[in-house]
């Protein structure tokens, strides 16, 4: 059976990422940043990617990466979720990296591994399971079109653009990137416009589709890990508040209804951890069960994170509803994450196909 635990190496990795984030990206700083002009924290990202070397965890050593796997990268995502950190890890070190790996590896992969450049896959962040439809056309090697609501593209140097049946590397400076007022303030989306822009083709036909699919699959699995970390912060901070907040001369956490709800959050979180670990482990080993594991992870972890964040706001009462308290950053990311890379509903539909639980026969269809 697949290993669902954390290795010592993974725990060390977690500790160093967490220490960095506690030091450099505490909640008040995140809140200040998302109200600034540059919502992504470039300096933090550089430290994380270059100094801690987490940018190339899933990249083989031949490209200068750490030669670990998406299992280890998932631990980073957990910590980034716990801190709602405004860095393009998911977009660059997971989605773009997995896309490039599947496309066969390019010079860009080495730049991602070394942290010198950052990339993003130019598909809408809400893209669900199944191939996304292309909205960019190619004429004579030049790309024209628009892609809405792309994650982690604002701080990217290179965009990976599915276009006209192929997959292209485009210099981000050649594209127009319009920042979007995003629900998740800690991961600001942008709309991308390409007007006759040069692109390097890195994959074609089925290879391009497979590369994009690999990127989205990895992104989905690791988004589940992010949801685990996020839910854990929500639960822990709520438990802490419930221990210390007195009403009716008792800690609020001594009331049974509060206890039972938090117990349910904990149960869901415990399961989310197992499920997300399973998805990351399948991804890392190329397990044939990966599609099931990934759909399961997103279908389960999304609702768990949303309900953890919703309970966090509710049980914090008035203070949880303020701008000043970080709970809302988690609520917004939880809800956005639940939509990103396909809703739980879409992933349940994918599971129905994968595990042979089809829907009702459509009238006229043969039994």
């Amino acid at each position, binding site marked *: 059976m697949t290993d669902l635990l954390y290795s010592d190496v993974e725990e060390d990795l977690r500790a160093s990422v967490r220490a960095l984030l506690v030091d450099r990206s505490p909640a008040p700083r995140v809140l200040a940043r998302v*109200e600034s002009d540059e919502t992504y924290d470039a300096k933090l990202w550089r430290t994380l990617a270059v100094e801690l070397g987490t940018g190339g965890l899933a990249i083989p050593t031949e490209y200068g990466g750490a030669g670990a796997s998406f299992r280890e990268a998932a631990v980073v995502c957990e910590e980034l979720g716990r801190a709602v950190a405004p860095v393009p890890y998911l977009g660059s070190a997971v989605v773009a990296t997995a896309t490039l790996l599947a496309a066969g590896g390019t010079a860009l992969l080495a730049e991602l591994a070394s942290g010198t450049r950052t990339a993003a896959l130019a598909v*809408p*962040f*809400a893209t*669900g399971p199944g191939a996304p439809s292309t909205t960019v056309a190619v004429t004579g090697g030049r790309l024209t079109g628009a892609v*809405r*609501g792309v994650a982690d593209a604002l701080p990217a140097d290179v965009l990976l653009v599915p276009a006209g049946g192929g997959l292209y590397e485009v210099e981000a400076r050649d594209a127009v990137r319009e920042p*979007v*007022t*995003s*629900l*998740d*303030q800690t991961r600001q*989306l942008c709309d991308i416009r390409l007007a006759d822009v040069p692109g390097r083709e890195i994959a074609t036909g089925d290879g391009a589709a497979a590369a994009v699919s690999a990127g989205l699959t990895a992104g989905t699995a690791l988004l589940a890990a992010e949801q685990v970390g996020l839910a854990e912060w929500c639960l822990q901070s709520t438990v802490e508040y419930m221990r210390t907040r*007195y*009403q*009716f*001369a*008792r800690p609020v956490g001594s*009331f049974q*209804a*509060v206890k039972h709800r938090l117990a349910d959050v904990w149960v869901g979180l415990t399961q989310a951890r197992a499920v997300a670990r399973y998805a990351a482990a399948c991804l890392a080993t190329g397990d044939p069960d990966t599609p099931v594991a990934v759909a399961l992870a997103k279908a389960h972890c999304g609702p768990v994170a*949303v309900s953890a964040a*919703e309970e966090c*706001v*509710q049980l914090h*009462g*008035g*203070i*949880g*509803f*303020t*701008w*000043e308290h970080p*709970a*809302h950053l988690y*609520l*917004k990311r939880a*809800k*956005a994450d*639940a*939509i*990103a890379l396909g*809703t*739980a*509903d*879409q992933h*349940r*539909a994918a599971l129905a196909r994968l595990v042979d639980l089809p*829907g009702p026969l459509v009238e006229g269809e043969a039994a």
Partner: protein
Amino acid sequence: MPEPLDAAAVQARVADFLAAHDPATTDRLEFLRARFDAGLAWVHYPPGHGGLGAPLALQAGVDRAFAAAGAPSNDPRRIGIGLGMAAPTILRHGTATQRERFLRPLWTGEEVWCQLFSEPGAGSDLAALATRAVREDAGWRVTGQKVWTSGAQLARWAILVTRTDPDVPKHAGMTYFVCDMTAPGVEVRPLRQLTGDAEFNEVFLTDVWIPDEHRLGDVGDGWRVAQTTLMNERVSIGGGPLPREGGLIGVLARTWRERPELRTPGLHDTLLRLWVAAEAARLTGERLRQQLTAGQPGPEGSAAKLVFATLNQQISGLELELLGDEGLRHDDWGMRRESIVDFAGRSPTYRYLRAKGNSIEGGTSEILRNIIAERVLGLPPEPRSDKDIPWKDLPR
């Protein structure tokens, strides 16, 4: 005691009044003041205080008649706290002088009211409040911090609950005042919410002087007076009859109908569950109104706000998932100074976020469930240690 007026008699008075005061030519404020003086403001109030001592059920007909005649309105949404909470409290617990002074400009909207109840340390447990009022000469010096005050920046007056005796158990040592919001020492600071807006305020009171004639009810009787206020807060949430799909479910149903490409079988099932829940809530509200009209008020009102909060949260949550891509976009994070919640007019993300407040503001859903369980179902209370010890000795 004379028989209360019936519908016909009240409508006759409206007709007489409109004949004497042409809405088209009478100055707005003059018209409203005259309507108040004619007892047609709130007909169930006593004569002399804007009413006729008539049944509450007749008010809706009066309002409709005035609206049909194109009469100016007192803009009830703008002065909701005054109408819904301050007025019934002043009527019940105020002196004749206080009623005389406050009720007319409250109803006409000349003076806006706000509410200074919640504190950072006293939310659900309002009786734990710490804002101190100390007797001084012919009045009181008040110091403390209040939160979640909507409209404080617009208000002329506030209803205020304070701690006047820390040495007795918490429910016994409170006193209720009318507070002049223009008095020195009153500082209003906007309080920003997770939507980005600042609908509410924090209000800091620093040695604010309140004359004793602005005390409402006896010294130490503030808890009982506040009950009147809070009971009316919950009743006023009912509102008028709602048509089918009248709430947020209508917004969602419209999107569903107009955007077939967004539909999935799974979301369809959830949508239908919410439609059923919303329609059940609507019919329950309608039945409650019929009970009130028939003079059989039931306990069902306790559930309305609880259900409303849950529905708004679930519906707006589903809306974002239905919209996908578009559900990731917000309209504006700027700090707006709105006092009115515009669910339908803002973005789906705003609805989702703002609805989170529905289960916190004006009594949390947890407290409402406690109330239903204990007052409606008669389940035994939690064991309590905070009722018999002096406020100052409470664990906090």
